């Protein structure tokens, strides 16, 4: 190991990075369960596309724009194509910079995948991938630079532990912009558009929570006190949000709902994200409990509008992110974080620093996302036609279905080889097709 690298820190950060990478497919499971079955593969694929496209843009320029020296607004291109990134530790950390690239990159991937939740069931896959490439270059790295890369918010003293600005507010308000620009689904407000598999929703939420221990627990960039605090707060806060959500559900409808509980897990994890390493465990529990209320209100209110922000990215991420960022301003405690106190412990200035982030971040995320989608829309239609929407995005965009029985499927080609010629000629001559079952799909 290069000098200055700590073995314990590196071991934990390797693990934490893998945990955060798991969150993107976990989000795919969560989102896929929330949409109708005919769109579930497409929805999952939008998360997987982020793992592909955003990783490439992160390595090419994203990392450098976020963590290059640069100015207050954006980094520079010194580390484009990961030049100059090796086994030596990044300044201020004790892990190899190469590992730091992977850890921070996994945040960028997840954040852009989150945005897809606003426009599922109708956006076309091609333009979406272009959007992912541009967004993961011009929005995430810029906002990450502000808080993590030495940008103006970090200079001003804004505390953001694991991405209340760059992950939660960025995705939440980008989602709002995308939903407003793409427009409502064809049947929105006319038909009940229900989650097709609530068990998948719960499974996805559980895996997201699991991954969040790497997300927050790793944001101390090492095996250290602040990481331990963040780790435990990531257990405490979402648990309290769950309890709070149960109560709100009981008051509103007399029943505790499963999809609501899954949402509560996400809201709790999001709300503690910016504050995880800055507040005491007891304040983390209070944060979790109170955070349920604003997100619950937004999620109940938004369907009454004509904004089809389909999977509640604004309510779960944008609003909970704002809540967490502001909470730091009140209850940060230097005894725990070793950096700064909040208003409640005698430092009113911290609240002002936090409010600055809340004023600027949503505007940038909303504005740039809106412009990017407008730009892409000039070259290609962003959304599927009404007829395509009716058939479902799985068949239209991918030529596959999530739940296919195989009954009545006629084998045309296996791995590029033609099946017996007589079958093809039968089909071409219009003779009635014989029914066949595809071969075991486990075989290549």
């Amino acid at each position, binding site marked *: 190991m290069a000098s200055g690298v700590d073995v314990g820190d590196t071991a934990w950060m390797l693990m934490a990075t893998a945990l955060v990478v798991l969150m993107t497919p976990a989000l795919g499971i969560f989102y896929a369960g929330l949409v109708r079955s005919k769109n579930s593969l497409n929805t999952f694929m939008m998360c997987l596309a982020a793992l592909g496209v955003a990783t490439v843009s992160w390595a090419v320029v994203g990392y450098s724009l976020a963590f290059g020296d640069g100015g207050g607004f954006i980094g520079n291109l010194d580390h484009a194509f990961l030049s100059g990134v090796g086994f030596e530790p990044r300044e201020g950390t004790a892990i190899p910079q190469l590992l730091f690239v992977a850890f921070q990159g996994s945040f960028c991937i997840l954040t852009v995948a989150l945005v897809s939740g606003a426009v599922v069931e109708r956006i076309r896959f091609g333009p979406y991938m272009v959007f992912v490439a541009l967004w993961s270059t011009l929005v995430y790295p810029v906002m990450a630079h502000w808080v993590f890369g030495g940008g103006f918010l970090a200079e001003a003293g804004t505390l953001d532990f694991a991405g209340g600005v760059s992950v939660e507010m960025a995705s939440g308000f980008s989602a709002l912009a995308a939903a407003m620009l793409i427009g409502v689904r064809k049947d929105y407000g006319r038909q009940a558009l229900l989650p097709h598999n609530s068990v998948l929703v719960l499974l996805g939420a559980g895996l997201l929570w699991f991954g969040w221990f790497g997300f927050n627990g790793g944001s101390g960039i090492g095996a250290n006190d602040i990481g331990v605090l963040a780790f435990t707060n990531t257990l405490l806060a979402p648990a309290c949000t769950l309890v709070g959500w149960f109560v709100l559900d009981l008051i509103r409808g007399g029943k505790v709902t499963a999809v609501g509980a899954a949402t509560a897990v996400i809201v709790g994890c999001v709300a503690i994200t910016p504050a995880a390493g800055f507040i005491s465990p007891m304040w983390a529990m209070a944060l979790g409990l109170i955070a349920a209320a604003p997100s619950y209100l937004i999620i109940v209110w938004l369907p009454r509008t004509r904004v089809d922000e389909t999977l509640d990215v604004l309510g779960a991420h944008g609003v909970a992110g704002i809540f967490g960022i502001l909470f730091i301003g009140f209850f940060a405690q230097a005894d725990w974080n070793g950096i700064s106190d909040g208003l409640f412990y005698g430092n009113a200035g911290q609240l002002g620093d936090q409010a600055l982030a809340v004023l600027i971040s949503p505007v940038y995320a909303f504005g740039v996302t809106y412009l990017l989608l407008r730009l892409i829309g000039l070259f290609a239609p962003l959304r599927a036609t009404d007829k395509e929407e*009716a058939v479902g995005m799985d068949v239209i965009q991918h030529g*596959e279905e999530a739940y*296919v029985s195989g009954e009545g*499927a*006629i084998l045309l080609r296996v791995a590029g080889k033609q099946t017996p010629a007589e079958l093809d000629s039968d*089909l071409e001559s219009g003779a009635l097709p014989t029914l066949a079952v595809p071969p075991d799909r486990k075989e*290549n």
Partner: protein
Amino acid sequence: MKMVIGVVRPEKANDVLEALFRAKIRGVSMSKVQGHGGELQRVETYRGTTVQMGLSEKIRFEIAVSDQYVDDTVKAVSEGGRTGDVGDGKIFVLPLDSVVRVRTGETDDDAVTPVGN
């Protein structure tokens, strides 16, 4: 009395239901079926295995009605289910010998007329 059987696209099932309710036709069963008409078939590929999906998902409505409601029922199903493309489905009208309401033992026209009409 007639049994009206309508086979329509799954994505139009809600429109058909809405049209039936608007026409005050209340006694309806529906089921998911797979079928083959003259429609263009979808080609799908799974890990290099390309298949032609010979059967399409359809929704089958079964509606038993007294004679005076037959035309309204057929109209509701056909207008609710129509997109204008091949594959919109079919409607079959069959004679119906007898109907019994399980709860009361009422028969025929009394049995097919939903309570509250």
